[in-house]
């Protein structure tokens, strides 16, 4: 059966072998790494979930969001609120006491339950994206104006989270928890478990987005990126398609946030602010947008580089980030996957087959 699967489609065979090899390697990773490194990899994979969702709307829909930090943050806070309540037991979370709150705010109540927190962590960001998308896309706010609006959203939400210290922990965020459902977050076995959960979540997110892209929805998204007017006069309402994709993207960002908190053990407003939001876009740009897989590669590589460089030269990362941004924009508009397909096509050209793949618009 495995043989049939491998030989079933000759065109995709090498691709499938490559995929199986990558997945196998990923599954074996816990054998070769220390728990600390495994935690880092898990964190990168969690962030890659967000990148896939971002690529869905940017690469295919042409919608540039600089506000994904908010959706990420909402998911992260949802998980952190559950963990905090769990850690505090029957007592009020410690920061609420310091801020002078007498009782638990009503909206914290649902987060006592793990399933509720899990669902809300994806539902709330998706809902916020849905509302924002509904009003902006319906009124035909597109391009740079939409991007500016998402930046404004970041400003508003971050200010709100910092200001409402008794509800959100203010600038310090929410921290001070070390177990989930009775498992110690720092124990190596939990780390391995979370690694596989995150890997599965990433695979799920990738398959979901791939299915969307391969369906008529992806086709309409791409079409409205290139000519929204035409789409409308074909009888489609592009705003509904964009809103849908934006909501899916927001939900995935929330999922990424939840898994991120489990690794990092803290979420604060600075992690969902403007700079992280821009960094997220850079992951997708470096990996190559409009490919989905590029977003994963970009997110993992850039975050690994960030960790590595920050360990060696604490001040160096921002310089590298700035330089990378310039290089990607000027030299690699299609990112790493673009370089890869360019190299592949020039290799096959040397082999004799000439593809007249003209991707440039005349």
């Amino acid at each position, binding site marked *: 059966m495995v043989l049939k699967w491998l030989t079933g489609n000759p065109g995709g065979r090498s691709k499938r072998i490559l995929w199986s090899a990558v997945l196998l390697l990923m599954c074996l990773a816990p054998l070769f790494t220390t728990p600390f490194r495994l935690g880092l990899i898990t964190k990168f994979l969690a962030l890659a979930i967000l990148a896939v969702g971002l690529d869905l709307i940017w690469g295919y829909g042409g919608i540039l969001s600089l506000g994904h930090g908010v959706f990420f943050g909402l998911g992260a806070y949802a998980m952190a609120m559950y963990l905090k309540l769990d850690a505090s037991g029957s007592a009020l979370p410690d920061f609420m006491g310091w801020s002078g709150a007498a009782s638990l705010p009503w909206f914290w109540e649902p987060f006592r339950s793990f399933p509720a927190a899990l669902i809300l962590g994806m539902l709330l960001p998706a809902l916020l994206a849905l509302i924002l998308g509904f009003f902006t896309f319906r009124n035909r706010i597109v391009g740079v104006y939409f991007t500016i609006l998402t930046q404004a959203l970041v400003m508003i939400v971050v200010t709100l989270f910092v200001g409402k210290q008794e509800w959100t922990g203010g600038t310090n965020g929410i921290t001070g928890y070390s177990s989930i459902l009775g498992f110690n977050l720092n124990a190596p076995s939990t780390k391995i478990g979370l690694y596989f959960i995150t890997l599965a979540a990433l695979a799920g997110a990738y398959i979901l987005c791939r*299915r*969307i892209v*391969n*369906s*008529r*929805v*992806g*086709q*309409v998204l*791409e*079409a409205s990126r*290139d*000519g929204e*007017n*035409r*789409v*409308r*006069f*074909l*009888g*489609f*309402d592009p705003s*509904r*398609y964009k809103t*849908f994709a934006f909501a899916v993207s927001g939900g995935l960002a929330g999922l990424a946030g939840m898994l991120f908190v489990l690794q990092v053990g803290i979420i604060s407003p600075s992690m969902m602010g403007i700079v992280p939001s821009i960094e997220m876009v850079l992951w997708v740009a470096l990996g190559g947008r409009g490919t989905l897989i590029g977003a994963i590669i970009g997110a993992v590589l850039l975050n690994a580089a960030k960790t590595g460089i920050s360990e060696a030269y604490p001040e160096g990362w921002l310089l590298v980030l700035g330089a990378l941004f310039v290089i990607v924009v000027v030299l690699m508009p299609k990112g790493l996957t673009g370089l890869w397909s360019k190299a592949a096509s020039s290799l096959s050209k040397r082999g004799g087959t000439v593809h007249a793949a*003209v*991707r440039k*618009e*005349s």
Partner: protein
Amino acid sequence: MQPYAKRADVSLAAHGEVRGIGMSPTVLSAENITVAFGGFIAVNGMNLALRQHELHFLIGPNGAGKTTMLDVICGKTKPGAGRVLLGDGLEITRKRDYEIAGLGVGRKFQAPSIFPNLSVKENLELTVDSDRSVLRALKVRRNRCTTFEMKKVLELIGLPDRLHVRAGSLSHGEKQWLEIGMLLLQKPRLLLLDEPVAGMTDEETMKTGELLQSIAKDCSVVVVEHDMEFVRSFAAKVTVMHEGKLLKEGSMQEIQRDPLVAEVYLGKRRVANAQAAGH
């Protein structure tokens, strides 16, 4: 003389006279349409009735309000006054553009507006669904097999061997035909075209004219055009607009004989000639 002009008399005899201004049922009627952009009145109390199986040309000097009229019908511009009714009495004046498109009013813009990054096939595919909701679209995979209707349309627009070509790499004329083909797959009752032959070679213009004639057998076609040779060759019925108003409606021969139309089109030259003669 331009090659397609030679056939002018033939087609006029066939379409202009025999079935041109027949009394086939109305597909759409626009009543008393007025559109103002700021202080400028683009269309002023215009009436237009479009009948089935009719190749209807809308002509007039620049700024006469022809394109604005198409915009009103397809919902791109909302009129200040007046109403647009479909043949069955449904009012579409206040409907959204995509809803009007869904009701069978296809609009072709002046510049080719196809999707350059999708293949010819995918461009056509986008138009064949009857249900345009997101939920259904999620279930449909793109790049399925080519349907019989798609093949028919491809044959009609002369692109059967370009199915897997990226639409952006087609020539200008081919892009225009592809867009017309996309509209045809929607099975429209009315097709609105804005200067479809602008920028085409004589041969392409000829082909486009024949294409429009064969389309008009199944639905009503309205063409805004400046190329008078083209209008003369293919028009069954002509409406002349001037300064946002209806000036004259009839067959091409009637229009050409009309002194008022000549005045509008040639007025300035005549005044100039008169002045020259006076001196």
